[in-house]
């Protein structure tokens, strides 16, 4: 009797210990998930925290007295005069009038509040409308990047404010007067890269990405679908088919940078194609995404039930008719979903594009498949390497735009799957 009691006691003791272990094991699992999810949260918070200010620009609105004498310009239609004329002086004078307590002696310090390219803006306006000469116009200019940084980040230890104390006081007063204002940064979305952070934009990179993705899509989707159809429907059971399959599975796991080496050696050095163009980028990304598209398309074909095939064959359709008229339309939603996910991967890819020269500093927005271009992730890479925090800020903004693209592509894929995919 006592024996049984002690045995029960031992079991009860061990049960306690085992349940404790059980709870601990469960806690480990929760901890692991918490670590992974908090990494995700920290990543997003960090990037939004660094980048949200890039969506704000700082501008200064001035009453510019476009005085012919001050600018040494009496005919705004004369190219030579336009080249020689002084477009800085009217701006400096206009700003001097606005800055309380500033005199002619401070003109250099005042000039440094303006963006170095503001004078170009005045010249372009005059080129377009020569009759503006001799009038007074209200014009809005970008401020110098230093002013932009001061307005947005005064008091932030990470940023070094490069304005003198007197300049800072001026900027504060101009802000109070409403001469210097902040607004939505449309420059970011309407320009290419620039050496001046406040004039740098991602439009060039977005267009480059779109061109590259277009090449990738029109090549990889048809080729991938055709390859999947062959492997699922027509391929004989032989060594070569096995070899193709092994190749596809391995290519799916080859590091992306190797595809960059392939592009450099084959497309650029062997075929003499130009460097840093969307066409070559698209070709490299096509080879990289093909395995993904083939694998997902095969899965989609496999999920079409045999009864469909048998019914079509039963009424006399040929093998090709069965595939093209019945299997393919039913598998298409699954193929599209897989392709969108493959395209999202290609859109975020950077490493192979570095090797084919898409890292050049390109100011102009590309206008064709053979025009030098960069893409969004490479633009992030370029700006992230800059020592200037104003560029880091814009890199974060570019990341936000890139992630927005990726999330909407994935959402589209999920929506398509829910909407179109049939359960058998």
């Amino acid at each position: 009797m006592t024996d049984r009691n002690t045995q029960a006691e031992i079991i009860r003791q061990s049960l306690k210990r085992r349940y404790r272990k059980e709870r601990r094991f469960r806690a480990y699992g929760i901890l692991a998930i918490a670590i992974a999810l908090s990494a995700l949260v920290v990543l997003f918070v960090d990037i939004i925290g660094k980048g949200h200010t890039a969506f704000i620009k700082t501008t200064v609105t001035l009453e510019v007295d476009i005085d012919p004498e001050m600018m040494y310009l009496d005919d705004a239609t004369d190219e030579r005069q336009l080249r020689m004329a002084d477009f800085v002086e009217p701006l400096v004078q206009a700003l001097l009038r606005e800055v309380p307590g500033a005199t002619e002696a401070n003109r250099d310090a005042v000039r440094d509040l303006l963006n170095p390219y503001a004078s170009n803006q005045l010249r372009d306006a005059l080129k377009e409308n020569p009759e503006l000469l001799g009038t007074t116009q209200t014009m809005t200019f970008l401020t110098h990047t230093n002013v932009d940084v001061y307005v947005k980040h005064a008091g932030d230890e990470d940023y070094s404010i490069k304005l003198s104390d007197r300049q800072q006081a001026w900027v504060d007063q101009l802000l109070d007067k409403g001469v210097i204002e902040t607004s939505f940064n449309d420059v970011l979305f309407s320009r290419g890269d620039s050496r001046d952070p406040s004039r740098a934009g991602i439009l060039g990179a977005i267009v480059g990405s779109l061109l590259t993705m277009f090449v990738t899509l029109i090549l990889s989707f048809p080729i991938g679908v055709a390859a999947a159809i062959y492997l699922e429907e027509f391929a004989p059971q032989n060594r070569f088919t096995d070899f193709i399959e092994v190749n596809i599975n391995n290519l799916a796991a080859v590091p992306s940078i190797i595809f960059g080496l392939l592009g450099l050696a084959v497309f650029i050095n062997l075929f003499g194609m130009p460097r840093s163009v969307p066409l070559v980028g698209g070709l490299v990304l096509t080879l990289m995404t093909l395995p993904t598209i083939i694998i997902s398309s095969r899965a989609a074909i496999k999920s079409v039930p045999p009864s469909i095939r048998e019914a079509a064959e039963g009424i006399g359709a040929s093998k090709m008719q069965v595939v093209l008229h019945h299997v393919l339309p039913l598998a298409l939603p699954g193929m599209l979903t897989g392709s969108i996910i493959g395209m999202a991967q290609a859109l975020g890819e950077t490493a192979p594009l570095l090797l084919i020269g898409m890292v050049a500093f390109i100011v102009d927005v590309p206008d064709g498949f053979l025009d030098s271009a960069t893409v969004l992730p490479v633009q992030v890479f370029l700006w992230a390497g800059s020592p200037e925090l104003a560029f880091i800020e814009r890199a974060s903004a570019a990341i936000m735009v890139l992630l927005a693209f990726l999330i909407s592509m994935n959402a589209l894929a999920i929506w398509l799957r829910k909407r179109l995919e049939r359960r058998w």
Partner: protein
Amino acid sequence: MQPANLFLVTIVLVLVAYGLGYTRSRSLAMPLGGIRHLKSLPFYYGARAALWCGIPALIVLALWAMFQGKVIQLLVIGSLPPEMMPASEGEASLLLSKISNVASGALPPGFAEPPVVEAAERLTALRQQSRWYMTVLVVAVAVLAGFFGWVRIRPRLNARAQVESTLKWIFFACAALAVLTTAGIIFSVAFETIRFFGKVSFFEFFFGTSWSPQTALRADQVAAEGAFGMVPLFTGTLLISAIAMLVAVPVGLLSAIYLSEYASKRVRGVVKPLLEMLAGIPTVVYGFFAALTVAPFISNLAASLGIDASSQSALAAGGVMGIMIIPFVSSLSDDVINAVPQTLRDGSLALGATQSETMKKVIFPAALPGIMGGILLAVSRAIGETMIVVMAAGLAANLTANPLESVTTVTVQIVTLLTGDQEFDSAKTLAAFALGAMLFLATLILNVIALHIVRKYREQYD
């Protein structure tokens, strides 16, 4: 015409050929008493004419567009006066870029030697000519072949069989592209690697412990002799990958176990897509995060503890890479754990084991081979990962096992050697291809083993 426009023209011709073939078959059938007297439907006659028109023309177009650049380059170089003839490939590429800069107007002709200006003019003329020839040839091929396909349409012709077997061949060619890609990778890296070993000894590359690929760019330049020992790169890659796996394996595995064994359906439905989001974030974003947030954080933390840490520590790059790989490990382990038959689970629970005991003593051992396969795939992923290390790891090749020091990796060196100014046949550039070959081989071996294990394991419980 530009190749892109010519492509569109060819497509239009193909559509025209389809229409003509379609109507011709119908008009041939008319006197016989309708299309039921045709061997195939009119669609197939049209499609046959379209294929005849399109395939040869597109092949010509593709070949021309592929090789015209190289051929024109060779012609321009070949027509230079003998004293300008470049001695090496590197000189040739410098000269060519100069010529094309003059041709495109980026470099004013006044800044170049007269033969270069002449060559630039020849380049422009040749490009113009090439475009003309291409346009004429492609259109001629399309029209002639299309006409041939059209004129041979007969009511008894089995157009469907022909169209279908052609399509089958096209599908086959698309599938075989994968083999071609692999062959392209192997040839492009193998060729340069062999040339590299002509310049640097085999022994030095594999066993040398110092890596500083700064060779003289020109013969008359004074520069340090380059050193090409890949041991420090190899250990650096291993160190960073090991750190990544130390983060990814426990976190990924435990979260997969929790999600598959404990979590309710609702939790699973929310957490799983969130985890997969980690896999969808581009690597350049992780690189940004590692270089600008994690690395400074680690070096500040170490400094406040009185330890010396590099601002490009291996720990930052490896840790962030680990986060990137978490979803990879967790989804693979999830699959494997779910593939373990329910009967094993039920048996263990029926004997009175708790869930964690079942997991640890029954399911985990059963799933172990599959999990190992998944981990190997993750390792190959970590070794080949580029952007995180390019942005967050260092450039100096240190032979160290200290995670707080800066190390460099194979991928970082490939990118550094191949971006910026380069001369194509210098040992420096060739070294990048040799490193690429090593990387390809290493990941290939890992992948083959891993895929083999995973497949074997799947068969075991099927």
